[in-house]
């Protein structure tokens, strides 16, 4: 399995920065997410996590540091959380941390909905 590294650019702020690292067992998504053809962007990330759960099976941390995600992206993030929940139910060790700006109370509500919909425990952490 290979790592996924996507850097963000000021000219395309609608794509988030992505760092999925097999050796460290860490997946990070940060910045903003409101691209066109959202599923096309997220599909490789979803497949990476599926492969990790199937073949690597080591502990996995998902750190989300998105200051904005559109509703299409929320659907893809929910897909990721559901895969992680399945991995956890099969004995995998998973930790999900969601970093948020405390000046944005709408995000807290969004994360609570993700928890309820996926069944995955999400740790809410304020941005430093």
């Amino acid at each position: 399995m290979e790592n996924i590294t996507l850097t963000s650019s000021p000219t395309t702020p609608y794509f988030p920065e992505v760092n999925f690292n097999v050796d460290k067992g860490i997946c990070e998504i940060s910045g903003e997410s409101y691209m066109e053809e959202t599923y096309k962007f997220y599909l490789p990330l979803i497949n990476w996590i599926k492969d990790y759960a199937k073949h690597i099976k080591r502990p996995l941390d998902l750190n989300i540091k998105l200051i904005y995600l559109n509703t299409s992206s929320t659907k893809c993030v929910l897909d990721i959380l559901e895969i992680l929940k399945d991995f956890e139910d099969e004995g995998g060790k998973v930790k999900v941390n969601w970093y948020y700006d405390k000046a944005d109370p709408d995000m807290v509500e969004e994360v609570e909905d993700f928890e309820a919909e996926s069944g995955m425990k999400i740790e809410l952490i304020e941005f430093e």
Partner: protein
Amino acid sequence: MDTNTISTMTSKTILSYNGPFYIELISVFGTNIRNFNDAYSNARKKLFKIFIELSQNVSNYSENFHMINNVQRIGVGELSLKEFDTAYSFTTKNQVKKTDAEILTERCELVNASDQMKLRELKREQRLNSPGEKFGARIGLIQAVMLSKNKLEFKVDKINEDFSYFSLTVKIDKF
């Protein structure tokens, strides 16, 4: 006067556009909306989110569209952002099939008849049941009302037997 109806109040136009809703344009407009001044930061955060959702609805679903390289479909429509003393109002207008106008009208009426708790329920339900992939989550209208806490103003203008214009306005209070 209905507190949700602001079309008769004095306003200044911040942004007005008619054309294809390219993501590059939406992004530049959105960034400007977020950063054009330091006042009402909470309202502008909500405005940005609503702006992106409703603009992407035009981009994805307008029946008047441009094709890029015969592959990518970019919806054409109008947007208008106005500032009032106590609120912003954001309007989009695009062409829809007559049958879709009826579906959209029903959807807006359902959203307007729901309180915040019901909207949250609807959002969860629709996100879980949405086809995903090409069509996204289909919860943009619900999200706009949940964020603004104001009802949608919508209007259908017949173009011909097959198509109509669908206009949608959301008010975002400054305070």
